[in-house]
């Protein structure tokens, strides 16, 4: 077992990038940014990691540099948040279209306006459809672990997709947690040197990012769509291999006290840990409540979700972002997953904790209370913004 060290989660993420022997790091250094690249710039400057560190003038350039570097066959890394991700968003679609296995950590933070720096998932939802593998993690250990998991998955010849590790900004990125560091020899074994399928090289000229006429564009997108959906077995395989190495097994959908629960809370990201405390309290009070956590956001695990959700009578889906004018984005997906089933549970949707507002265990209990009452009264598809002063 590796050494357990107390450290800030962002620093642990940077250490993971170092252990993952990344070749190129490109990032915009100023707000909104985390200590991840700050620490990486020190690591590279100190000669602890043999990598090129590009300190660029914008997030648009940060990801563009990653595109160029990944196209030559380099293992590349970047990270950003909120408005930075917005500026980067144009390039996110290009990365997945070119099938470059770049890994990015997004410390999820609010999009303006009003101007805000705190945590929610509005940035992640803005680029929901960009075609990357998208993980949501719950604590610092999972951030650290998923750096290795992401590279091994992304670089697999049968996958070749970029991956985003979404971690809640501040709630995770700026807190100190115990992190079990994995020995370097194990990492080297788990994560072999990246062998690109195609790369830019003067000896073997190729064209990347070519123009596609309407007569072929749909075929390119079909290929991309099938490839991302087909990456699921590899994603599971890498999680299994990682679990065999560390004892920490991850799944697309994870549960807590869910087996016999009538009511299931559904969360994504760091909400999961807090909600599990609330579930314990409700179980102690004799209530039939469990928790379902969505770890894999894309490709969306429809089948895994259905297996758990269809056993419950009602789901209380808690989004941490709004789709203004519709319901929460996670609830949309959950409802879509369940629509084809005859005996489907009611889905009550709250948006909670936007812009970093605290959601403590009593808040989860209040949401379950409210949902159970509303559903009992026949409001089976409710949607509301939790905790708003009237």
């Amino acid at each position, binding site marked *: 077992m590796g050494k357990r060290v107390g450290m800030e989660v962002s620093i642990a993420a940077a250490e993971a990038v170092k252990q993952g022997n990344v070749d190129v790091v490109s990032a915009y250094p100023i707000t909104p940014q985390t200590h991840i690249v700050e620490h990486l710039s020190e690591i590279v400057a100190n000669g602890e990691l043999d990598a090129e560190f590009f300190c660029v003038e914008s997030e648009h350039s940060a990801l563009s540099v990653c595109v160029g570097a990944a196209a030559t066959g380099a293992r590349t890394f970047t990270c950003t948040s909120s408005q930075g991700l917005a500026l980067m968003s144009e390039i996110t679609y290009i990365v997945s*279209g*070119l*099938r*470059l296995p770049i890994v990015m950590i997004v410390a999820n933070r609010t999009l303006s306006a009003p101007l805000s720096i705190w945590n929610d998932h509005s940035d992640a939802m803005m680029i929901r459809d960009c075609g990357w593998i998208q993980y949501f993690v719950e604590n610092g250990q999972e951030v650290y672990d998923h750096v290795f998991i992401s590279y091994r998955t992304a670089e697999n010849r049968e996958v*070749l997709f970029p991956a985003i590790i979404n971690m809640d900004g501040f709630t995770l990125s700026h807190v100190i947690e115990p992190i079990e560091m994995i020995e370097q020899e194990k990492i080297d074994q788990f994560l072999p040197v990246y062998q690109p*399928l*195609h790369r830019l090289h003067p000896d073997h*000229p*190729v*064209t*990347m990012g*070519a*123009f*596609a*006429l309407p*007569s*072929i564009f749909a*075929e*390119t997108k*079909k*290929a991309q769509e*099938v*490839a991302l959906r087909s990456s699921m077995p590899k994603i599971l395989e890498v999680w299994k291999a990682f679990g065999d190495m560390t004892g920490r097994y991850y799944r697309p959908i994870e549960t807590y006290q869910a087996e016999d629960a009538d009511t299931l809370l559904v969360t994504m990201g760091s909400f999961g840990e807090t909600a599990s405390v609330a579930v314990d309290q409700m179980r102690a009070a004799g209530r039939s409540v469990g928790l379902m956590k969505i770890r894999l956001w894309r490709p969306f695990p429809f089948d895994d979700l259905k297996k758990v959700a269809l056993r419950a009578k009602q789901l209380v889906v808690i989004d941490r972002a709004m789709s203004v004018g519709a319901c929460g984005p996670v609830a949309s997906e959950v409802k879509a997953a369940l629509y084809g089933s005859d005996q489907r549970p009611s889905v009550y949707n709250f948006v909670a904790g936007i812009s970093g507002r605290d959601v403590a265990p009593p808040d989860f209990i209040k949401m379950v209370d409210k949902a159970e009452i509303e559903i009992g009264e026949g409001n089976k598809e409710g949607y509301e913004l939790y905790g708003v002063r009237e």
Partner: protein
Amino acid sequence: MTKPESEWTWKELTVGNVVLEPGNASQYRTGDWKTLKPVLNKELCVHCGLCYIYCPDMAYNLSEENYFIADLSIARVVAFVQRNVPPGPSPWYWRRRNNG
């Protein structure tokens, strides 16, 4: 040798749509979306060759009568239409593209 883009199935595409055959752009007719097409007025043409020289795609071929004939699936010709070229008025003018 490649084939027309309308014949490719999604299963045949390379990962990331990488083009593995350098220079195969010459085999594709990419410029057929014009609504106006440039036409050469041979009476005004002074055979100066500027259209050939300025075209980034080298899309002109010299005909037997010494006219530079544009391959309109590639050439833009835009720079010379209705603009004077030495020593007089432009030999190129626009015509609405109805049937080719």
